[in-house]
């Protein structure tokens, strides 16, 4: 662990200006929030009549307490700990991601390299891509039931960024590299595995990062409409509409934000490792 803390300390020492800037923007945001809350509540440094919307903008401290509460105790609506909600949402994201990855990468490589496959797939892709995943909710919930329904929504959200980035990457393969490989004896299979696939990998990683972000956005709305075992989106929806405890609702939003940052962060780390291993950038 000492090696880790050493590395961390080194990182902080080298990057402290940027870290300071980042922290100050967060502090600024929380201060603005607190001021707005105080204004609505007509409390110091403001005075006057409390606005009807006061409870909808709780103080930062209240949200923090609600956040801690959600982990320490069971939520008032579904009586689950926040960890159970997180687990439920993570399950959905990972299964949806796995499915999207397994389908989008081969499809993308194929559509990027084979003109026929590209022509075949393009109209369907262009037709379905702009439809927001949430529009599928009613059909999926009925056709795929409560376990797979939200997963399918997440799948759709993650699928298209990965697919499109993979296609773009596959199309962008430097033709000189293909020529070189051919003069070294590569046949179609070798070209695909040893040239196209490694070349496209950074693009796939970009698609993954984009897809994960979209996935978290879909998860909230997907869980609002029928989910098994809770979920952070379900939590947010319950706290707002079912029960009106808005400090907890905001706490749920913070949890989603943190989870999103964590998953994209992990994806970024994987990307860095991959780049180093592949010797690019």
């Amino acid at each position, binding site marked *: 662990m000492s090696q880790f803390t050493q590395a961390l300390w080194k990182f902080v020492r080298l990057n402290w200006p940027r870290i300071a800037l980042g922290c100050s923007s967060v502090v600024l945001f929380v201060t603005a929030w607190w001021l707005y809350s105080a204004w609505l509540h007509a409390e110091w440094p403001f005075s006057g009549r409390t606005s009807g919307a006061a409870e909808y903008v709780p103080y930062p401290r209240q949200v923090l307490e609600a956040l801690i509460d959600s982990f320490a105790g069971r939520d008032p609506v579904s009586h689950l700990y926040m960890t159970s909600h997180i687990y439920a949402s993570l399950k959905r994201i990972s299964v949806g991601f796995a499915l999207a990855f397994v389908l989008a990468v081969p499809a993308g490589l194929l559509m990027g390299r084979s003109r026929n496959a590209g022509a075949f797939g393009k109209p369907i892709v262009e037709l379905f891509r702009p439809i927001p995943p949430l529009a599928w909710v009613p059909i999926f919930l009925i056709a795929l039931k409560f376990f797979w329904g939200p997963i399918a929504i997440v799948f759709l959200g993650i699928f298209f960024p990965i697919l499109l980035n993979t296609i773009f990457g596959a199309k962008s393969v430097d033709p000189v590299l293909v020529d*070189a490989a051919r*003069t070294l004896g590569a046949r179609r299979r070798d070209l695909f595995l040893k040239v196209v696939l490694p070349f496209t990998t950074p693009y796939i990683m970009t698609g993954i990062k984009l897809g994960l972000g979209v996935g978290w956005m879909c998860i909230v709305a997907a869980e609002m409409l029928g989910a098994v075992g809770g979920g952070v989106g379900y939590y947010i929806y319950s706290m707002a509409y079912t029960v009106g405890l808005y400090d907890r609702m905001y706490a749920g939003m913070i949890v989603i934000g943190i989870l999103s940052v964590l998953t994209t962060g992990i994806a970024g780390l994987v990307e860095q490792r991959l780049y180093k291993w592949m010797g690019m950038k």
Partner: protein
Amino acid sequence: MDGNEVTTCINIQGLSKVFTRDRLAIRALEGFDLEVLDGEFVCLLGPSGCGKTTVLRIIAGLELKSGGVVQVHGREICDAGSDRGMVFQEFALFPWRTVKSNIEFGLEIKSLAPERRGEISKRLIELVGLQGFESAHPNELSGGMKQRVGIARALANDPEVLLMDEPFGSLDAQTRNMMQKELLRIWSATGKTILFVTHSVDEAVFLADRIVVMTARPGRVREVIGVDVPRPRERTSREFIAVRGKVLSELDEEFEKARAKELARK
């Protein structure tokens, strides 16, 4: 340059190539003839657009000919293969592979065992002078070093001919001169047949046994000039300058013809 019998490596007769672009037929090559003997170092020289790179790519199997005969050691060429290695101006190294694994690329395709691959790549790395850089990635190498990898990689497959498409065009003048000397050293160590495309007269005279001067488009052989200057060649020697002058005059005439054609088309 050895043995009692001098065998033909590349035999090209009446090669023609037509490109169609926007329904316009561009006749790149017409009636191109060339014979390259085993162990020879031959340069293809000509004005831009004369089709010298096209000739190389057809021999490599990366382009299809429109007509004529193209044979390597008596075999008709139809597709790319590891029997004709190629070195590119842009280096074309696989950025995600190390130096060692770039060189071993063709050997992997042939499914050689790792130990065997290691032997071959080790020998080649020593040959091109890159000891110590086996685990480096292309982005850590200078231009000259990258091209050494390119040469080693092509040689790994023990090709029948080494095709080089302006390989030093991306390098600065000093590195270029150094690499030319290196190439000659590698050539004499391996005895490979080399077909080298360039548009630098100096380079051609320094390197080649014979220089094939091409006409402007549609390209064919204008003149084949033998370079009888003994090696190692001095760029300032009288013989060198004489050959250079001869080649230049041939080339200049072609340049004028090409320009006239351009202007006539407008």
